[in-house]
């Protein structure tokens, strides 16, 4: 287990480093940051000044190394639009996005796991069909459109929920549903197929043969094993949701990191964009690392591979 731990840790570290290089150079290659930051109507002198101030005139590799060095100490530079340290902006906004992500994940698990299990216990039944439609629809629905439709229904036609803002819990209901539904198909399919596989196993038949009540077999014997892959997909989906929240937050005007990303992208605020890309990637890498560990802990067979 210790070897496994350090192997995975090393891999996670390498991936994080590589992603930081990639995203840094990709954003730099996409255009001259000084021109983008200066905006329309800037003179050559303005652009030169910005280049000087943000150090864009140094070699790219030097810029990357100093950016990474500072980032490791939690210093992401100054936001060119908000005129505040990027780290401060992010620490102000991150809790909202994490809160939204967690509630969306809970919503999605509460919807997907029971539905997937019921579908597996009664294959080809009505409930299985419903579960399948929920998942097929979830995969095909553009989430920004789903968000707007919820606003039309619950804010315009039946005004029960506020359409924008983040003052109280009611503001989070619709964003949670939209973001959570996005993760539902993957979790549900995995629960269903995992459960189907487990239900065919010998030990389940043995448990039934011993006369253990069916509900107990289902929950104690089957679910425990079927839920295994769900742990790792749930963490992966959480990472996707943080990335996808940029669209949802901009629609519902939630002041999270997604909206911050959106604002800084439209203002060419490069230091902020870079910091957010890096942090979201790091969160994702971290989640994957934890999921790997949890899986290895739950299933000793994985540790050897």
């Amino acid at each position, binding site marked *: 287990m210790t070897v496994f731990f350090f192997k995975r840790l090393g*891999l996670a570290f*390498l*991936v*994080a480093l*590589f*992603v930081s290089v*990639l*995203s840094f150079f*990709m*954003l730099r290659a*996409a*255009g001259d*940051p000084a021109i*983008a930051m200066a905006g329309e109507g800037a003179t050559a002198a303005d652009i030169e000044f910005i280049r000087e101030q943000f150090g864009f005139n140094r070699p790219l590799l030097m810029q990357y190394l100093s950016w990474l060095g500072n980032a490791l100490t939690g210093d992401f530079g100054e936001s060119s639009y908000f005129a505040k340290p990027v780290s401060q902006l992010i620490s102000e906004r991150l809790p909202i996005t994490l809160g939204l992500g967690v509630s969306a994940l809970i919503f999605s698990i509460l919807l997907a796991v029971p539905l997937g299990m019921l579908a597996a216990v009664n294959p080809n039944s009505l409930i299985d069909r419903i579960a399948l439609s929920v998942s*097929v*629809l979830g*995969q*095909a*629905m*553009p*989430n*920004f*459109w789903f968000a*707007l*439709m919820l*606003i*039309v229904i619950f804010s*315009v036609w039946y005004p029960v929920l506020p359409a924008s803002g983040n003052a109280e819990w009611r503001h989070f209901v619709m964003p949670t549903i939209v973001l959570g539904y996005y993760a539902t198909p993957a979790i549900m*399919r995995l629960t*269903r*197929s995992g459960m*189907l596989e487990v239900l065919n196993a010998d030990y389940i038949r043995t448990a039934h043969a011993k006369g253990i009540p069916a509900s107990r077999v289902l929950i104690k014997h089957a679910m425990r094993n079927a839920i295994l892959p769900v742990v790792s997909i749930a963490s992966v989906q959480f*990472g996707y949701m*943080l*990335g*996808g929240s*940029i*669209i949802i937050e*901009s629609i519902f005007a939630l002041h999270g990191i997604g909206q911050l*990303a*959106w604002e800084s*992208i*439209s203002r*060419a605020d490069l230091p902020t*964009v870079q910091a*957010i*890309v890096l942090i*979201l*990637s790091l969160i*994702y*890498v971290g989640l*994957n690392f934890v999921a790997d560990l949890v899986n290895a802990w739950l299933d000793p067979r994985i540790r050897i591979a």
Partner: protein
Amino acid sequence: MNATSNMPSAPDFTRDLEIVAPLTPRQIFLRRARRHRGFLFGAGVILVIAALALLAPLLAPHDPYAQNLISRLQPPVWMDRGAWDHPLGTDQLGRDYLSRLFYGAQFSLLIGFTAMVISGFIGTSLGVVAGYFGGRVDLIITFLITARLSMPIVLIALAVAALLGSSLTIVILILGLLLWDRFAVVARSKTMQLRDADYLMSAKALGMPRWRIILTEILPNIMDAVIVVATLEMAHAILLEAALSFLGLGVQPPLPSWGLMIAEGKDFLLFEPWLIMIPGAALLLLVLAINLLGDGLRDISSPEARS
């Protein structure tokens, strides 16, 4: 085929037929396809939408760019004030909504298809190389896949589109360069399964060069799986294009992308919600159809993989 046809679980006369006269793979495919409802629905809807997109210049009742400020925001024909001259109404600039919807289908299909071809090429190449050569090559490519999966694609696509300035080509390139991961994963694992197959051994023994083994022996055998991924990734690309256009960083006005139409209709959400419902429903239908086609293809080409 024969292994399964020896033990029929239910009376199925097509199986008996197969014993009498073995079917060609194409016949088996068509036979299964004709019975698969999801596949038929998906294929049908895609054909209709593709036909509408291709024939838009003939079918559209109006010029999709012609503004008419006198008849702005006319609702669809089934609502009060609706009229048959604009069956789906007009937008905030008085442009015919049905015509814009037809032309918008061109963008969705064009962007989805080209992005899928680019990402399919990148991902399949990487996956086959990783799966065939294994060892260090495989380690490096697996690492690339992991790294790609760790990057928030929506955020990166938006940032790059904003910095480069958005255009049709740029949207296609961004999506094509970002969506190759699933191709690589599937092509890699399928190739690994084939690596020890007898016909690969004999090709190697005959002295066939590696690139020919990959092109003529491996690729045709993993194509089924790659095509299934291709449909799912095309749907994915269409959804992402719509999201980019919705946020103003995809297809630019006055071009009629469905995502952009939803963004433009958003300002009239309070009183004219049909402005967002119609393009959104079209998008949902198209993506649904592509996904069902993909699921159907998987069921048909390898029924044992169905969960």
